[in-house]
């Protein structure tokens, strides 16, 4: 415990800072005032920061849930004998999702689905597929062959083997993929504000439009804090889940 303490202190401090900023942003006004010019407001005043942060988090989580379902599903499909032929295709699709810049996805999606949350969800969904898919693939492929053979040899059906043996054994890697995808997308989600999705990107964009460095900085800072805390929380959850999995 004594080794963990500095990390715990840092964690609690970061969380406290985030909450304090979101709940009482005006108390940080003196800190940001030197960054403004011509008496511009030091704290974003065209919307509630807490609402924006929660909206962004919500968008990211919905997108990650969809990415997880699709990526894990594809990973399972292409590691089955019958689905192996879809591996190159799935890989290509997932890779396109990652290489195609999210901004470009937004540009393409807006004419199709309109402004707001939806284009952002699509962009984040596509962007988050790759880490989950690749990790699922590695996780399922590195199950010890003897374990799989024993499972089949004892009479587990293909489905039982998948759910009782393969997925639990691949779970640490799958969770890691989900975590990566979530954290990447917390940052990426800010660009959604260019197409009117609610989020902290709004603050950054307002700052850029009005040359208000204070806005840009607080938008970035809050997003960064959220990403770090999310990463941390998910790592802890992962460890916890693994413990229950092994003891169950």
């Amino acid at each position, binding site marked *: 415990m004594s080794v963990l303490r500095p990390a715990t202190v840092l964690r609690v401090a970061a969380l406290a800072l985030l909450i304090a900023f979101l709940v009482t942003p005006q108390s940080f006004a003196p800190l940001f005032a030197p960054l403004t010019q011509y008496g511009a407001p030091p704290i974003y005043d065209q919307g509630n920061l807490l609402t924006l942060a929660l909206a962004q988090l919500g968008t990211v989580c919905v997108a990650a849930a969809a990415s997880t379902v699709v990526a894990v599903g594809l990973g399972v499909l292409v590691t089955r004998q019958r689905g192996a032929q879809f591996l190159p295709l799935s890989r290509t699709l997932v890779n396109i999702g990652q290489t195609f810049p999210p901004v470009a996805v937004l540009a393409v999606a807006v004419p199709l689905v309109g402004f707001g949350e939806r284009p952002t969800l699509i962009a984040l969904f596509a962007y988050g597929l790759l880490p989950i898919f690749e990790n699922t693939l590695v996780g399922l492929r590195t199950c010890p062959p003897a374990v799989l053979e024993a*499972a089949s040899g004892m009479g587990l059906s293909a489905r039982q083997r998948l759910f009782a043996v393969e997925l639990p054994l691949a779970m640490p890697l799958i969770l890691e993929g989900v975590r990566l995808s979530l954290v990447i997308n917390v940052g990426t989600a800010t660009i959604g504000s260019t197409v009117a999705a609610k989020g902290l990107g709004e603050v950054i964009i307002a700052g850029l439009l009005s040359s208000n460095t204070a806005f840009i900085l607080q938008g970035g800072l809050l997003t960064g804090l959220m990403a770090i805390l999310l990463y941390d929380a998910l790592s802890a959850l992962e460890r916890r889940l693994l413990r229950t999995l092994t003891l169950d």
Partner: protein
Amino acid sequence: MITLESLSKRYGESTVVNQVSLEIERNSITVIVGTSGSGKSTLLRMINRLIEPSSGRVLIDGRDTRAEPAHLLRRRIGYVIQGYGLFPHRTVAENIATVPRLLGWEAARIAARVAELLEVFQLDPGKYAASLPHELSGGQQQRVGVARALAAEPAVLLMDEPFGALDPIIRAKAQDDLLGIQRRFGTTIVLVTHDMDEAFRLGDKVAVMSQGRVLQYDRPAMLLIRPTDPFVTRMTGLADRALRLLSLISAAEAAVPGTSEGPAVQGSASLRDALSELVWSGADSARVVDADGTARGCLTVAAILAHGRP
């Protein structure tokens, strides 16, 4: 009884198992022995349909194994492999409970069976039931592997090099345990190995395989006395065949009425061991006794030696 009827397995051009027919008796241990690549593992896996035969069929107690879905068939057949393949994320008790759970046994019956097996395999339930496989030694993992295979009381147990990863002392113990288990549960065991000593030690009958064919299928002594193929002789070895033959006969079987001043030999010991004892002690004859010390007769060196000739 397991009947293999002209079983073959072909992968493209190559024939891995070629027209194998065997009758495997109930309540016996049959050992399939061969060099690597002889097709012995493939033959074993065709019995529980982990590999589907290209042609031929397998009957268990007269019933074609293809009469039911493969995974249901396998729940009635125990299966042990070299690496054991224990589920690393499940405890010892859960590993052993795998097949009973698949079969939908009641929780109380599963618990009782797991406890019984842990005891049979000398694994203290209080200490090991909740352990994870990686916390066990190699020998303990092997025992859990066999216990798991026997959990649902299968009539047939298939074993593929089950002792391959054990060191010699633990292996000898595990082989003795297997003989005890076979007697206790009356399981029909088919075991694959590349080790002729293991085949002689365990097998009621031994099938020698090479290049996909069974060259000879017989009692171990017959492989020595009447080999039908030069390869069988190569596998059994010429140099110590007399001693191998002696190792197949127990002192109790060979003992004749009478008494002797010589050293005492256990009735369950092989003639090979009895001879070794006589050579070591310099005596001409030995007393044969039961485990509880009652006399069973005697054995002379000359009588022992006579057993070492066909």
